[in-house]
């Protein structure tokens, strides 16, 4: 019988869909019977989804300008 601790230990692989069918079936069985683990799995899944959906902010133009200037100096020195 799977405990909540067993479930938590496998949670990342469970959410990444990185488990054998048999272990996966056991974990799925556990969350149908354990509301706490269901909530933990669901909210952790949403946590990952929200972060993955985050686009990087556009890079500030002054930062990009200094980057491009540094690169141009580098390129010029390499091709002398």
């Amino acid at each position, binding site marked *: 019988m799977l405990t909540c*601790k067993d479930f*938590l*230990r496998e*949670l*990342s*692989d469970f*959410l*990444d869909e990185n488990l054998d069918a048999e272990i996966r079936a056991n974990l799925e069985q556990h969350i149908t019977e354990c509301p*706490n683990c269901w*909530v*933990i799995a*669901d*909210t*952790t899944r*949403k*946590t*990952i989804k*929200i*972060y*993955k*959906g*985050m686009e*990087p*902010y*556009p*890079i500030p133009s002054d*930062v*990009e300008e*200094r*980057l*491009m200037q*540094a*690169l141009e100096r*580098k*390129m010029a020195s*390499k*091709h002398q």
Partner: protein
Amino acid sequence: MLVSSQAGIDDATLVAQTREGDARPFSELVRRYEGKVFRLAQHVTQNREDAEDVLQETFLKAYEHLDQFRGDSKFYTWIVRIAVNQALMKLRRRKSDKAVSLDETIDTGEDNIVREIAAWDEDPEQRFSREELGGILDSAVQSLEPLYRSVFVLRDIEDLSTEETAEALDLSVPAVKSRLLRARLQLREKLTRYFKRKGDDLFAYL
């Protein structure tokens, strides 16, 4: 800025063209990944000035050592690896804090933190503006210890695989997995404060 004529060309071709002595394709590679590298650098160093240094050093090093890129991994993974190394060096220099060491052994035992168990709405992030959400997510990541933060940033923000994350941080795959689990659970805990279903609090007072 000039509109790039190289927008549709894949990374490997741009790398090959740069190696042949044309510097322009490299600028396109920079444009493709500068945003992600800058974000990663900010997350790891937590310092805007250091992040800008890391951004520059990363692309300068990549340009200088482009002949060492063998093409058996993606260009993006290679760049991320350079960026992570530069960022960790900054971090170590700034804080000689032992918590910064990524080699430190951590307890991977049973005490994964789960204190708050409250259901969230289906798309709880939609309650917040883009700016508010960005602030909430960034400050939650910043509150993680460096050794969890780096793993989470690479794995779940930059979307590297477990193996690529292990390679970039010079960690074993099991170490990446245990740190990732901790990081995810800690973030879940922190975000529950903002994202839990409205009304569920009521029951806490009954």
